[in-house]
């Protein structure tokens, strides 16, 4: 009983007003619901950035960062809104999240914008979110799909691929990417033999593979995530001898691909945002106690880092002040910052310098918080993923 009382007291203290040397950040992700298997790594990635900053002791004269986790449920907009309101009540200085575009839109419109709170999502890619009136408060580190579709189409055409089968995850990310790719590719004279959606969490993908392979095509474009059905489809296609060559957009790119499929996908191509960026490897090796290669884990690290660096640049934890600085710390010019160098970045900023967060994903923000930039083209040789070029 005594323990219980003590714990209650402790909670009450934690929940109390932010002390002067502490800055709270909300971490709102779908810890339950359809993407519950991704969110632990995403949260860990973001919290890694926060811990790094706290440990450096350089944030605004030695402030520590406390993450406060809330469940967005991914699907329940009302519960997510309530959770976000609780974050506001707890006095957070910024919100990392949310994840799924649905709840992200709801929190953005109903909580973040009204309260003037900065929100950086690592994963919401819906093009629809670009049109939401956000007062410059909303940012995302996941790249927009529109440009990638064009890049991917160009790549395939240049390699002389005239027809592909296309499968996409039935979410705003997959659908958006599939749409932009199909439009671009067909505009260049290519043929998409079939465009078939696959759903998250439906385990059995025989119907999709059957449809894709009987429609045929020189390559299979898999606009999905390795651990959310995309991997299963690749596996089933290889197993059935339906496709040997694939093309992978960013959601699929990661060391999980060569690790899972080895030489089976030799000759395939893919692209992911990134300049010649060793940051990703650094991030993965720094990740402790979680899987740094998890989908969106690296974007999460960058998102949290962005918020904190912007605070330092602005010299304030007030969202309405530091929102102006998010783009400048994300983009050139400035000293490039790799994962693990956040402490250094804070020092430079404190001294009045400028930084360019490269981070784990080579984050680059354009017009109003959309991530963009260059793409790294990869190919698979001898069971290894190698960089072919940058464009």
């Amino acid at each position: 009983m005594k323990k219980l009382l003590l714990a209650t007291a402790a909670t009450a203290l934690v929940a109390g007003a932010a002390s002067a040397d502490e800055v709270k950040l909300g971490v709102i992700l779908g810890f339950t619901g359809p993407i519950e298997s991704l969110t632990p790594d995403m949260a860990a990635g973001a919290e890694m950035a926060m811990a790094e900053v706290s440990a450096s002791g350089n944030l605004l004269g030695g402030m520590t960062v406390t993450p406060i986790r809330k469940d967005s449920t991914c699907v329940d907009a009302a519960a997510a809104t309530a959770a976000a309101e609780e974050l506001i009540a707890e006095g957070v200085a910024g919100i990392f999240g949310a994840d799924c575009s649905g709840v992200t839109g709801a929190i953005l419109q109903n909580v973040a914008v009204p309260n003037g709170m900065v929100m950086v999502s690592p994963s919401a890619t819906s093009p629809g979110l670009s049109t939401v009136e956000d007062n410059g408060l909303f940012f995302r580190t996941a790249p927009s799909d529109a440009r990638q579709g064009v890049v991917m189409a160009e790549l395939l055409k240049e390699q002389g691929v005239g027809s592909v089968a296309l499968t996409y995850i039935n979410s705003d990310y997959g659908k958006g990417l599939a749409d932009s790719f199909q439009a671009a590719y067909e505009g260049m004279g290519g043929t998409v033999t079939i465009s078939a959606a696959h759903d998250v969490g439906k385990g059995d993908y025989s119907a999709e593979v059957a449809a894709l392979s009987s429609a045929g095509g020189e390559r299979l474009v898999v606009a999905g995530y390795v651990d959310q059905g995309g991997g299963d489809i690749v596996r089933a296609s290889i197993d059935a001898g339906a496709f040997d060559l694939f093309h992978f957009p960013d959601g699929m790119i990661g060391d999980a691909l060569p690790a899972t499929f080895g030489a089976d996908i030799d000759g395939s191509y893919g692209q992911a945002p990134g300049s010649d960026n060793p940051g990703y490897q650094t991030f993965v090796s720094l990740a402790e106690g979680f899987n740094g290669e998890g989908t969106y884990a690296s974007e999460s690290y960058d998102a949290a880092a962005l918020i904190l660096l912007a605070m330092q640049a602005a010299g304030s934890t007030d969202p309405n002040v530091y929102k102006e600085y998010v783009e400048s710390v994300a983009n050139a010019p400035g000293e490039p910052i790799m994962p693990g160098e956040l402490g250094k970045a804070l020092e430079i900023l404190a001294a009045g310098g400028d930084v360019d967060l490269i981070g784990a994903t080579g984050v680059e923000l354009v017009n109003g918080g959309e991530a963009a930039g260059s793409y790294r083209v990869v190919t698979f040789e001898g069971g290894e993923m190698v960089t072919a070029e940058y464009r």
Partner: protein
Amino acid sequence: MDFLNAVVAITNLLIIPATTYGAQLALGALGVTLIYSILRFSNFAHGDTMAFGTVVTIGITTLFQSWGISLGPLPTALLALPFAVAITAVLLVGTDFAIYRFYRKKRAVPIIFVMASLGVMFVMNGLIRFMAGVKDQTFDDGTRFIIKARDFKNWSGLDEALALRTTQVLTLVVAIAIVAWLFWFLNKTRTGKSMRAFSDNEDLALLSGINPNRVVMVTWVIVAMLATTAGVLYGLDKAYSPYTYFQLLLPTFAAAIVGGLGNPLGAIVGGFVVSFSEVMVTYVWKKVAIYLLPEALEPNGLLQLMSTEYKFAVSFAILVVVLLFKPTGLFKGQSV
């Protein structure tokens, strides 16, 4: 040659996967149907029971692997399966003892049981996530293939490939063995006969001296076996994740009802009806048509009845149609 190609294409992409998936669904549906016929309610917690059994199997498999025990070319999970069945059976019998028995004594209406099973579903949902987290888990080891696609192409010289995975054969073999055993058990053993008598007419069965508690317990044990096996086979063939297993509840129910709730044979047929319809309705028949039809008739379109987005809707649509025109299912099941 063209004809052979067409046959191979259909076998490879339609018949083999649909048969495997169908067998997994059938095992799940058998569990649902047994509960329905003997305990007289639709158990909404069945998907999570499958998940629970699989989680336990994964745990034990990991343990075995750490001890260096393996089954050679077969997945270690097979060795862990009996232990997992035992643990799942304990859980199910415990659930019955703590929850369902009370309502049985009160002779509550079936809907109350269904509601209680909803509660159990919620609780199990939390429980399995607490036990094994939320991540996808692959626990298949051993040899992956019996026939490899490329080997087959080289061997046969056909344009179309044929592949056969170990887990696919395993699913079928295990499913057939279990179903055979189940039918033998229900028809030949004393306990099985008393279960059938209990299912046909509870009051008469009680009068003739059958111990209802024993029947119920045996039922739960068998359900544990069916559910765990179904879950493990599914997980071996694909992967385990708690969210997916909850989603399995719906096609499983569809299978049980299409076949006729309460009828074991119906459950098996229902499983295959659902799996085959999902694949066939969304299948792109273009390639097969090109192989089989004279050139002049070659199709331009994909010859796809419905896009794959609707594959889940297909099984429900079949469910609804069957319910409307043949409410007791294809094989005569029980009505409430």
